[in-house]
């Protein structure tokens, strides 16, 4: 077992003995299920309306009515929930003075950062996997196009990974977990809100740059079923940048 694997195993163990994963996971799944239910009922109501108007069986687009709305709503849920999952990763180590132990172990900082990130990413992907029940069950009773659903899931995975990296970075900044959660939340909210500023500036250079920096349009394209290399590059580079910054912050705590 390599040191990175040892860190992943230890973090997973830490998450599953603490109530945090159960509570946050339950809330996440509850919200996902509830939103799915709402959008499906809403789609059903529209179908009935159409049937009455047309006097025959009506076809409705579940991809548009259910999944697009669902994935769009999940942005905000992820933004609030994921910093709570990541807040303990470094803050707790510093609070409990195990940070010094980690830093004096013969392990590179990049291995520590990577191990912690992968552990929480696995938990998140696990939760995402459970939500796969919704489209699976829906498939039994109706017809829809799987491709945009899969790109939507890809979008959720990439967006979540980016959010987790931001949360990890916030956790490295402080030894207070609540502060870490709020800093992570604040950074993510800022990147959400600047998309509005980008839209306001419209077709100018500044407008384009700001829109590109915000995760909104990249995620929306994936949810609409479009896989664009520039969006994948955005998520990939954002993720690497956040992990690199985390590495620098962890490194810098040695100098203080």
């Amino acid at each position, binding site marked *: 077992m390599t040191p990175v694997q040892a860190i992943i195993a230890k973090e997973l163990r830490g998450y599953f003995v603490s109530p945090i994963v159960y509570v946050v996971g339950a809330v996440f799944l509850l919200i996902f299920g509830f939103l799915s239910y709402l959008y499906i009922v809403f789609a059903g109501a529209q179908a009935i309306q159409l049937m009455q108007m047309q006097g025959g069986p009506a076809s409705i687009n579940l991809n548009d009515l259910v999944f697009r709305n669902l994935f769009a709503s999940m942005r905000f849920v992820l933004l609030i929930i994921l910093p709570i999952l990541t807040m303990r990763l470094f803050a707790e180590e510093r609070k409990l003075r*195990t940070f*010094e132990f980690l830093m004096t172990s013969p392990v590179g900082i990049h291995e520590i950062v990577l191990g912690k990130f992968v552990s929480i990413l696995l938990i998140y992907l696990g939760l995402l996997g459970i939500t796969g029940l919704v489209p699976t069950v829906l498939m039994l009773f109706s017809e829809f196009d799987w491709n945009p659903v899969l790109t939507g899931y890809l979008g959720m995975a990439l967006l979540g990974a980016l959010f987790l990296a931001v949360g990890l970075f916030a956790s490295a900044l402080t030894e207070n977990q609540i502060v870490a959660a709020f800093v992570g939340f604040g950074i993510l909210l800022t990147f959400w809100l600047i998309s509005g500023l980008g839209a306001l500036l419209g077709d100018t250079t500044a407008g384009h740059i700001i829109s590109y920096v915000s995760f909104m349009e990249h995620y929306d394209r994936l949810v609409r079923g479009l896989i664009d290399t520039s969006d994948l590059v955005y998520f990939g580079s954002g993720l690497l940048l956040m992990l690199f910054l985390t590495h620098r912050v962890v490194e810098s705590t040695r100098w203080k």
Partner: protein
Amino acid sequence: MIDVQNITKRYGHHTAIDRVTFSVAKGEVLAFLGPNGAGKTTTMRILTCFMPATEGTVRVAGFDCADQPLEVKRHIGYLPETPPVYQELTVTEYLTFVGRLRGMGGRNLTSALDQSIGRLELGSVRHRLIGNLSRGYRQRVGLAQALLHDPPVLILDEPTIGLDPKQIIEIRELIKSLAGSHSVILSTHILPEATAVCQRVVIISGGRIVAEDSPEQLSARLRQSEKISVILKNPSADCNAKLREIPGVLNIFPGEQAGMFLIECALGRDVRDEIARVVVSHHWGLLELRTISMTLEDVFLRLTRHEDGLTQPPATAHKGAPASQETTP
């Protein structure tokens, strides 16, 4: 094994340690003594590559802390001030994690695990969560962690803190048994610990080393002159002058009670028999005659209160040091 040359650590304008130089040979146990905030922990953190020194070089087991930190870390077992334990893990899980971080695995790890659990008598709690253990057990788990990979260099920041007296003795015995095969640096407030366990003591105060020697030598070096306490039943008015005539006597001070005298005499001269003879011949009535020697505690307090310590010992203890260890002749 450990070679520290002129390390300085500054935090902004505050100098935590200032040109500290010392070395530890293979198999030697060195105690780091000093009041809180003296720079003990900072020095240890630099040795373990947790933080870099502002100036100076540190070599551990032949590797430079700045150039090959991973190699240095591989050769060190470190117990920080607070035992670095994860409360959500059991003792075995925790030590397994520590071993894996150090690249151990398989049978190697299992035997190291059993050995360090045995050494620190953790067998009865090995499957319990660390969060449910007492302070003493956590401290021992921390020590087990430092010893797990059997490192040539051990750095222990206050290893006996939080232990009960029986455990303290056991840990001291353990450290003593490590001497010879391991180089150990331990920091402590407790002076008898330094005397009991270490071959050499470094006293650090205000970020600087104020003294470095064996515990016995340190007290001897500081003891510039010896003092003898005499209690007389019926001293005469001229007894002060009479005693002063004895060759080797430097000074006489009145003691805390009536009839008590503190006689300061030149180092290495035993004038006790002379004093006894003079007292008896004048019929002053000898009730008590004893030497007062300084303990490491006195040395420590003296050195850390006055930074110029050894070079210019302040003229204190005129009234006789209350904390002095008394040796009756």
